[in-house]
């Protein structure tokens, strides 16, 4: 990997992340490494490493982070933020970072599909008559969809 | 001050082998000051000898006694009773004291408990250095108060030998070269011109090695003419 020149990085990135809901804590990190030790994803895929991601964000390696595939690997298990002694809600910070990536349209395709589903049905799974009949057979109440509300909310 | 150092215990033990009543005689002046033969050392040596004898189940006793100076007959006479009861004496005085002790008590074997080392000074706690060879022809007046006879490994009188390195003696890199120091000192005092005078060779004949000094003025007390 080529040498990183700090003069070329983007010191404002950390402040931008901190402005996102949930991203506030990012700058408090003092790199104790407990988060990585608690991360189940790191254990199976070395590309994902909480303290490295937070380091890259703090250093301002904006492009490398937002265009990466690894930020989407967070399973949002909250393990990292439970162990953090500095109250960095890292799971929320990851959402904040992913939101920034999404704003730049760097999103895995599956996720945008879910958004469309919600707009269309107000649910991840369409409720067809077939579903409701199956439910009725088991003595369960029918379910309604409210796509208009979700469509309105999601614009 | 005369500086001496204690002989090893085994050497002392060996000397008095075969004697069973030993007096350990301390001297309260030079050897006390250089922590080799004062009252405490005398007592310690006596106790050590007794302990060793006890361990070997020998009939033995050692006593310690200390006087102001063993180089004076008056003080030595204070030992009379103790020497009477002893069959040998270990003197912790300098070589002079030991000999005088032996002379005053000619019937009793007197052994040295210390090795007399030199005439020197106390540099600090437990550190003594030699300053004088008692050569009887003192040059200190022209060598800035530093004795080349004592301090120079070759006792040179006319400047360094050519071997000193960084101000140290060629025989021992820890030892200051006397002549470098002499030149330094005289330089500080702006008296270097003194050294332009060449000193004649040191006299080494019988005239300069007096074994006796007699002050005629005191001797005259006894003459009535």
């Amino acid at each position, binding site marked *: 990997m080529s040498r990183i020149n700090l003069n070329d990085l983007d010191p404002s990135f950390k402040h931008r992340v901190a402005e996102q809901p949930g991203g506030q804590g990012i700058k408090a990190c003092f790199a*104790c*490494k407990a988060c990585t*030790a608690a*991360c189940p994803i*790191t254990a199976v895929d070395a590309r994902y490493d909480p303290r490295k991601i937070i380091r890259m964000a703090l250093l301002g390696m904006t492009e490398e982070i937002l265009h990466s595939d690894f930020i989407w690997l967070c399973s949002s298990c909250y393990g990292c933020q*439970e162990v953090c002694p*500095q109250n960095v809600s890292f799971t929320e910070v990851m959402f904040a970072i992913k939101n920034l990536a999404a704003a730049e349209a760097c999103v895995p395709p599956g996720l945008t599909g879910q958004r469309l589903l919600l707009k269309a049905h107000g649910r991840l799974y369409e409720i067809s008559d077939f579903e409701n009949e199956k439910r009725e057979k088991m003595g369960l109440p029918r379910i309604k969809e409210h796509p208009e509300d979700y469509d309105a909310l999601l614009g | 001050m005369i500086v001496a150092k204690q002989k090893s215990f085994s050497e002392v033990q060996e000397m008095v082998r075969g004697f069973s009543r030993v007096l350990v005689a301390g001297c309260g002046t030079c050897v006390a000051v250089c922590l080799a033969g004062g009252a405490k050392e005398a007592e310690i040596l006596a106790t050590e000898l007794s302990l060793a004898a006890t361990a070997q189940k020998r009939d033995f006793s050692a006593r310690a006694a200390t006087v102001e100076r063993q180089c004076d007959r008056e003080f030595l006479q204070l030992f009379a009773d103790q020497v009477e009861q002893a069959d040998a004496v270990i003197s912790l005085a300098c070589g002079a004291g030991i000999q005088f002790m032996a002379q005053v008590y000619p019937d009793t074997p007197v052994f040295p408990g210390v090795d007399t080392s030199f005439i020197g000074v106390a540099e600090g706690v437990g550190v003594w250095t030699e300053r004088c060879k008692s050569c009887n022809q003192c040059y200190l007046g022209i060598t800035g108060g530093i004795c080349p006879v004592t301090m120079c490994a070759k006792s040179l009188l006319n400047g360094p030998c050519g071997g000193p390195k960084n101000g140290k003696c060629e025989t021992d890199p820890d030892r200051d070269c006397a002549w470098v120091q002499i030149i330094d000192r005289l330089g500080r005092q702006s008296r270097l011109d003194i050294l332009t005078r060449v000193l004649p060779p040191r006299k080494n004949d019988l005239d300069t090695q007096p074994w006796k000094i007699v002050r005629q003025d005191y001797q005259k007390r006894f003459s009535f003419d």
Partner: protein
Amino acid sequence: METDALIVGAGVAGLWSAWELALHGATATIVEAAPYPGGHVARFCCKATGRCQKCGACLLEDVLRKVRGSDRITTLLGSTVLEASDTDRGFDLTLLCRPPRIFPDRCDGCGACTDVCPVPGALVQSPFDRRMVLDQQRCLRFQGGECRACEEACTRGAVNLDMPAQKIPVSASAVVLAAGFRPFDPLEKPRLGYGRVPGVVTAAELDELIRTDKWFPGAGASRTRSVAFIQCVGSRDAKIGRNYCSRVCCGYALRLARLLRSRYPDIEPTMFYMDIQSFERDFEARLGEAAREARLIRSMPAEIRTGSDGRPEVVYEGMDEKRVAEPYDMVVLSVGISPGQSLGNLCSTFGIDLNSDGFLGPDGEAVTTSQDGLFVAGAVQAPRSIEDSVSHAIKAAAAADRYLRRMANREKQ
């Protein structure tokens, strides 16, 4: 009863302030809740490894010797301050003095009482002379129960639970609060396995075991070789409101590690840390030595759990592997210094506030408080090492002495 200075706490700071005040000619009364003096330090062992490691624990015995020899100092053990009000001459206080329930001259330290006592820690051996002492703040009988097991078990008639506690009014011109600290309770961090995972102890527990000669590495396959020290347990942790460094634990752990190794050279210590906080004069040299003897790993473990072989396992981020679960024979938690338990009471009794870290008195190093004539000394005010507590106590005594002189002058006029 009248005294120039009332000192709350007979730990190393309280004792030292009393002694310094006595040197100034003042009289001092020390009030200590525990049944023996010395506070936490009384349970610390000497960490010397053939040479002194400068832990400072011996300073307690030094000052106790002095305090015992001083006729200007009165020490009331088993006693607490019930009420205090300030007057124009100082403070009027009411003390609750609980007489010692075990007569030291009859007790031979046989331990029969401890064997029958239902409350752990209520009857303990004095750290100074092996005799037993009763902590009335734990004893069932003095907490509203009816137990007399120890009295009945003692064959020498050394226990007497019936002497009445007394309320004693005291007027004091100055008060020095030296109530000490509370070690962080590692149960507040359940992921570190304390109390659950076998082989996990606090540094202070290990310390006391060594002091009382009860710690041995064992033999054979179960011999303790690998020992992990976990730093910053309850320190530098904003999540639990401890946004401060406890200052002493790095040095404490390094000393313990070196002590263990000096006694049992096959012990291999590992230290998990963030930044090593020690800066005594010759520290860098000693850190170098310590680093050769202990493995230093800059990583905070996420969890300590019971491994498959029953040993404690430390889960941390390693250098190459991301998530390492490493088994150790023993895991030592370097628990931090927390504000003392009784601080809330002291605050309301004396009308002062906690500082920003939750300790008593002002921030920083000052020994004065918002109340005239009220001083703080030692770890009651901030985390402090033994040595620092002593120098802080000397300063507190200095300030109190100045105050006492001012009061005396005013009275003269």
